[in-house]
C-alpha cells in the first residue's frame, strides 16, 4: 500500500516483531494445508481444503506486505528467502499433517485462536492492520464453519474417528497457546492500542471457544491450564522445519533466476 501512517521507530520495530511471526504461522500452515491437494478424503473436500490453504497463503501475503511496507523489504523475499533459523512461526504449524483427524484438530483449534486474534485486531488503531484483519475475518468464518463441521462429524462418527480426534486434540492443544504468545515490545503496541488485547486475554478467549468442543470429546481435555502463553522466541529450526524449508525454498533460492 502507499503512504502507510508514519510510526515511531520503536513502535515500528515492535509491530514488525508482532507481524512477522504471525505471517510465518499463516505461511507454514498454508504450506501444510496445501499438501492435502489431490489427497483429501473425498473429492469435494479436496476442493474445500485447497481453498482454505489458499486463504492461509493469502493471509500470509497480506501480512508480509504490511511488514514490507514498514521495512522496505521484498514480500516474496520475506516469505521465501530467509534462512531456516530466521522463521518465527509457532511449532504447531510446522508439524506434518498426520492423519485427517490431526489435520482437522489443528485446523479448527488454530482457527479458533486466529479468530480471537482477528476480532481484537479489527479494532487496531493502526489502520492498515485493522483493514487486513477485517478482510481475513470473513474467510476465517468459513474456516470455522468447516472445521466445526468436521470436528463434530469425527467426534460423533465411529469409535475410531472419535479416538483419532481425541488423540489429535491431546497432541495439538498444548501447542496452541504459543500461537498467541507475546512478542518483543508488545507492551508498546498495547499502549498505542495497535494491539487492543494482551496475550493472556487472547489465550483466555481461545480457551473459552475451544473448551466445549474439547470437553465433548474427553472431559480431561477440557482442563486447559489457565496460564499466559510462553513468549515467541527465535529458536533453532527443528528437523521437521528444515525439511519443509528446504523444499519451500528449492526453486526460489536455487539461484537460477530472480523473477519467476
Amino acid at each position, binding site marked *: 500500500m502507499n503512504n502507510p501512517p508514519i510510526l515511531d521507530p520503536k513502535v515500528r520495530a515492535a509491530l514488525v516483531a508482532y507481524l512477522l511471526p504471525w505471517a510465518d504461522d499463516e505461511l507454514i500452515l498454508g504450506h501444510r494445508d496445501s499438501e492435502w491437494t489431490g489427497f483429501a478424503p*473425498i*473429492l*469435494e*473436500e479436496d*476442493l*474445500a481444503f*485447497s*481453498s482454505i490453504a489458499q486463504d492461509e497463503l493469502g493471509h500470509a501475503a497480506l501480512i508480509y506486505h504490511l511488514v514490507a511496507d514498514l521495512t522496505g523489504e521484498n514480500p516474496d523475499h520475506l516469505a521465501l528467502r530467509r534462512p531456516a533459523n530466521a522463521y518465527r512461526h509457532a511449532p504447531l504449524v510446522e508439524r506434518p499433517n498426520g492423519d485427517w483427524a490431526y489435520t482437522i484438530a489443528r485446523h479448527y483449534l488454530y482457527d479458533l485462536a486466529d479468530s480471537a486474534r482477528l476480532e481484537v485486531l479489527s479494532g487496531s488503531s493502526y489502520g492498515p492492520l485493522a483493514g487486513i484483519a477485517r478482510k481475513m475475518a470473513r474467510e476465517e468464518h*468459513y474456516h470455522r*464453519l*468447516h472445521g466445526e*463441521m468436521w470436528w463434530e*462429524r469425527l467426534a460423533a462418527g465411529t469409535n475410531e474417528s472419535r479416538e483419532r480426534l481425541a488423540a489429535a486434540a491431546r497432541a495439538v492443544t498444548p501447542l496452541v497457546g504459543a500461537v498467541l504468545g507475546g512478542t518483543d515490545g508488545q507492551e508498546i503496541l498495547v499502549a498505542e492500542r495497535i494491539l487492543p488485547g494482551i496475550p493472556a486475554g487472547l489465550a483466555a478467549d481461545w480457551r473459552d471457544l475451544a473448551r466445549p468442543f474439547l470437553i465433548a470429546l474427553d472431559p480431561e481435555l477440557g482442563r486447559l491450564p489457565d496460564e499466559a502463553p510462553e513468549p515467541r522466541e527465535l529458536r533453532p529450526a527443528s528437523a521437521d522445519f528444515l525439511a519443509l524449508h528446504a523444499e519451500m525454498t528449492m526453486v526460489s533460492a536455487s539461484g537460477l533466476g530472480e523473477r519467476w
Partner: protein
Amino acid sequence: MSGAGSGQYEVFHRKNMTEPMVHAGSVEAADPRMALLLAKETFFRREHPIGIWVTRRDDLHPLAETDVLEPGTDKSYRAIEAYTGIAKKREAVEEGLA
C-alpha cells in the same frame, strides 16, 4: 453411498436478488450441512452467489413423460405476438369514426 443422510446432493444457487434459484450440479456429502459447505468450493470458487440451497438427489423428481411438454394445438392467443396488428386496427377504427 449408503446411510440415512449421506449420498448425493443437488446444489442450487441464486446469482442476485432478481434471479431465481438455478441448478449448479451435485456433490457427495454426509448430510446437508456438509453439502452446503462443500458446494461453495465445488461450484462457486469464481462466483459469488447470494444464496445456496441443497437437496438430496432422492428428493428431486424428474418428469418421465417429457413428450407432454412439447407444443400442441394453437395457443397463440397466449402470446403478445397475436396482437401485432393492433396499431393498424386502431388507425382503421379512428379513421372510420372521423
